[in-house]
């Protein structure tokens, strides 16, 4: 599609030569500044797809284009936020955020200013000298977000970024992320199994079904941001997606579970 920033084009993937098909002919496009969610049950291939997009995994067929050029290896243009935050425990918060800038050839002062700017954006200026182990999980994820933002990547990939956090912290961070995204207009590809999270943050949701991993349905959300989780339109979409989800389940497992 013309004008799209990321094109996922017929991606198929198996682990090992004779492994089962984990991704089967996945294709979609993402425009610049868009937030899209990949929603699916655990094990349906969401992380694998995200790793292929980030260049962390090779695919068997198809390609991922960033600005029209195939992605073959990880790069700073497309930064991954890890589920376990991936902070370096021996570096202070500030030094963690600086990590991606150290080899960027940035003048020292500009790098410092950028670190300060993004630390402020995630509200951690006063924790700059703390070690990650001294922070709560939510704060650690904010450091990771600041570290990703500091590189000013074209795309941010998030793999269940708030999965390990309690509900309040999660809501709070989702809100924060949404505001930052509105301001900075980053392109975000978010993997989640949380319907509300996908509904709250995304412009479009791709529902995945497992065995093999395929896009089952695309849902465009025509709701203004910031969204109200108790809004009736929000409820309507939630129901719609929940119903779609039922289709992705294999009948037998549902009956078995009941």
């Amino acid at each position, binding site marked *: 599609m013309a004008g799209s920033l990321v094109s996922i084009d017929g991606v198929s993937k198996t682990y090992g030569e004779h492994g089962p098909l984990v991704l089967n002919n996945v294709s979609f496009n993402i425009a610049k500044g868009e937030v899209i969610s990949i929603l699916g049950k655990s094990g349906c291939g969401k992380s694998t797809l995200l790793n292929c997009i*980030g260049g*962390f995994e090779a695919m068997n067929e198809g390609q991922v284009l960033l600005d029209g050029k195939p992605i073959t*290896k*990880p*790069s*700073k243009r497309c*930064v*991954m936020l*890890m589920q*376990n935050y*991936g*902070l*370096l*425990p*021996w*570096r202070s918060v500030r030094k963690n955020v600086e*990590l*991606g800038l*150290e*080899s960027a050839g940035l003048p020292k002062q500009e790098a410092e200013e950028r670190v300060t700017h993004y630390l402020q954006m995630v509200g951690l200026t006063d924790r700059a000298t703390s*070690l*990650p*182990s*001294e922070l709560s999980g939510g704060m*650690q994820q904010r450091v990771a977000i600041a570290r990703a933002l500091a*590189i000013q990547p074209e795309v941010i990939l998030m793999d269940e970024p708030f999965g390990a956090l309690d509900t309040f912290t999660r809501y709070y961070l989702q809100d924060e992320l949404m505001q930052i995204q509105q301001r900075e207009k980053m392109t975000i590809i978010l993997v989640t199994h949380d319907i509300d999270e996908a509904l709250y943050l995304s412009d479009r949701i791709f529902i995945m079904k497992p065995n093999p991993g395929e896009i089952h349905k695309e849902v465009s959300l025509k709701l203004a941001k910031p969204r109200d989780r108790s809004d009736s339109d929000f409820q309507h979409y939630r129901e719609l997606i929940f119903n779609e989800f039922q289709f992705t389940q294999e009948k037998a497992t549902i009956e078995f579970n009941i």
Partner: protein
Amino acid sequence: MARLKRFPFIVMGFVLLIAVWQIAAIIGGHQAALFPPPLKVGEALVSIIVDGSIFTHIQISLFRFFTGYVTAVFVAVLLGLVLGRLPVVWQVLDPVVQVLRPVSPIAWSPFIVLWFGIGNMPAIVIIFIAAFFPVLLSTVSAVKKVDKTYLRIAANFEMSQVETLWKIVLPASFPMVANGLHMALGAAWIFLVAGEMVGAQSGLGFLIVDARNSLSLDLVMACIVVIGGLGLILDKGIHYFETWVNRIWGGTQ
């Protein structure tokens, strides 16, 4: 606090040791020259402290020790960092290391004297060998255990190989490496004396040989006390270093 509580036990241990020693000396009825009682050893210790000779020997011994140990640590850590990242190469080298490692560094002494002469070098080389293998092995296994997440971050941030080693792999494997440094320190200290018995004309190991040749067993024993005491201090020192490392590095992993 904990240290204060332990203090009486430590004192008691040493008092007990000296008491048993004294009793053995009395009951055994050996000549004081062959089995020096604590008091004679104490006198010998005081005399070498007063005339200052022990300090020259300690100084040269510590110089040899740190030269051998620090060189071994540098070489082994660098090598370990690289080899840990090259699994295929390590598979080839690992068996060789496993064969060389159990060989006592002293076994090499004939070659060492031939190749390096006498003086400081034999002791330094023997200490190097003693420290080298524990550090190498702990570094390689530490590097292999580095969390894949960190390596993904390095790739994502487009770090060069050298940068990845320096900024990610080395610090990530540091707690385990520090543990290797601790073990190597003990091993190397044990071989200091043996190393200085090979062609040295000074140092604590030489002092023992020299005192034996003049049949001053009280002096031999005084030397042993000094070696034990210094070993304890070194061990405590690196133990604090290790605790510090674990405090900084621990927590989130």
